[in-house]
């Protein structure tokens, strides 16, 4: 079960001022099929960089990523991504933005439209198909971003701080909604966030990252029920986890 996604000893540095900035320091991770893994870490700890490597947008200096045993060398249709800044194409309406993600897959028109409408319904965007991105609130825009990722029916969905650009009032609703569609579609999710509660609420397992360079400090299995609603936030188990992770993020190693 635990060899769905394998991330092995990833190191990554970026050139910075005649020197190098070490961003990822030997990341090793295993993710099972259908699992939601949430990485929590401070800003600058290399979370986005790790996701970009898994997405195939970036190459690691050393180390390897494989999905179902197949090495990741570039982007592929079995992985989709949800971006922190949504990444909608402003000149396309909601429907066309979602179809955009499906175009390289070479589906028939009917098939593509069926998948698009299914994804739109799942994220609660029915009736908004013809809206342009600028006409939607941030939360609604990210629903489009999630629908676009869902529509390709990826084996693994990568989420980069999906709700960090959404206002706080909307955020918790969106977290509940995301976890519902993820369970309904049995999608495996690798999510990164700096929001501790978000990581606990959404994750089957939480990985705590050290601050830069990013290293795995701790892996915490979350034993809360698999389908969660808002009320789990008030459980003492939830509170204790939050306190514990907060402490770990304060410590240096």
């Amino acid at each position: 079960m635990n060899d769905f996604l394998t991330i092995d000893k990833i190191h990554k540095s970026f050139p910075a001022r005649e020197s190098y900035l070490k961003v990822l320091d030997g990341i090793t991770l295993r993710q099972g099929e259908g699992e939601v893994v949430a990485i929590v870490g401070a800003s600058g700890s290399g979370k986005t960089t790790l996701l970009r490597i898994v997405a195939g947008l970036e190459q690691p200096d050393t180390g390897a990523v494989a999905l179902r045993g197949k090495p990741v060398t570039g982007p592929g249709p079995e992985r989709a991504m949800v971006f922190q800044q949504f990444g909608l194409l402003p000149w396309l309406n909601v429907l066309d933005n979602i179809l955009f993600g499906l175009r390289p897959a070479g589906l028939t028109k009917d098939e593509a439209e069926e998948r698009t409408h299914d994804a739109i319904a799942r994220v609660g965007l029915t009736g908004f198909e013809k809206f342009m991105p600028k006409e939607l609130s941030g939360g609604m825009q990210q629903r489009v971003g999630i629908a676009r990722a869902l529509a390709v029916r990826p084996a693994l969905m990568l989420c980069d701080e999906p709700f960090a650009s959404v206002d706080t009032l909307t955020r918790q609703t969106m977290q509940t909604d995301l976890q519902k569609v993820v369970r309904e579609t049995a999608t495996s999710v690798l999510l990164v966030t700096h929001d501790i509660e978000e990581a606990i609420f959404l994750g089957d397992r939480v990985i705590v990252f050290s601050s830069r360079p990013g290293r795995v400090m701790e892996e915490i299995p979350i034993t809360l029920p698999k389908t969660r609603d808002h009320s789990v936030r008030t459980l003492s188990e939830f509170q204790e986890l939050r306190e514990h992770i907060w402490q770990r993020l304060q410590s240096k190693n």
Partner: protein
Amino acid sequence: MAASAVQELGGDQPPTPRKPLIQPGVISFLILVVILGGWELAGRFDLINPFFFSWPSAIAKAAWVMLMNGQLFVDLWFTGYAYLIGVIAACIFGSALGLAMGWWKTFGQIVDPYVVFFSAMPRIALYPVLLMLFGLGDMSRIMIVFIGVLFPVLFNAYVGAKQTPRLLIDVARVFGYSNNKLFLSIVLPSSLPYLMAGFRTGITLGMVLIVVAEFFGGSSGLGREIAITATMYKTPEMYAWLIYTSLAALIIVRATDYLERRALAWT
């Protein structure tokens, strides 16, 4: 997930804003009437030299004659089609070249010095060269418009392609778009506001160039008519041609505005 969508469809019609007592357009028109009336009187009572200034009714009569005998359309067509061929060719070629330079970096670096050199050349100074090469036929005028319009379009396209948001490029790549597919589906549309700005500059510059080019000679054309009537002191006709030229320019600029609004409604 559907139940929790935050934004709801439907709603009340917003109240229509109150209209001002007198429309600004009405005031503009009244001012025009006063100016034309004053000019007419000044002309009739010899307060200005009719040789240089003429007056509105004389100009209107000249304008009416050229409209009725069809001379206006002959010249409009003569100038217009050379202008349109030059502008459209320059917009297409300049956009393609500029976007390609901005997107395929190495290509851009190779072509860049040539673009800088040719763009530094004063455009109208090339006209005698073009006349030497192509003679007084249409080709010289088409080429001067083409060369003039090419560079503003090209530069804007170049900048537009270079500013393509990294995020959107990443989005397309994640969803499996190749570098070449990305050019058409991301670089081109995201550069559209820049392309439009380039077209707008080019369209007005092209009008100046073709009118000035026609001053140099040729069989007809709006610029030709202005030059001839001026040298022959046919003052009312000269103003009539000037007004028709301005109106044609205004229509083209307005049409561009309209197209731009349609094309950039998403911004």
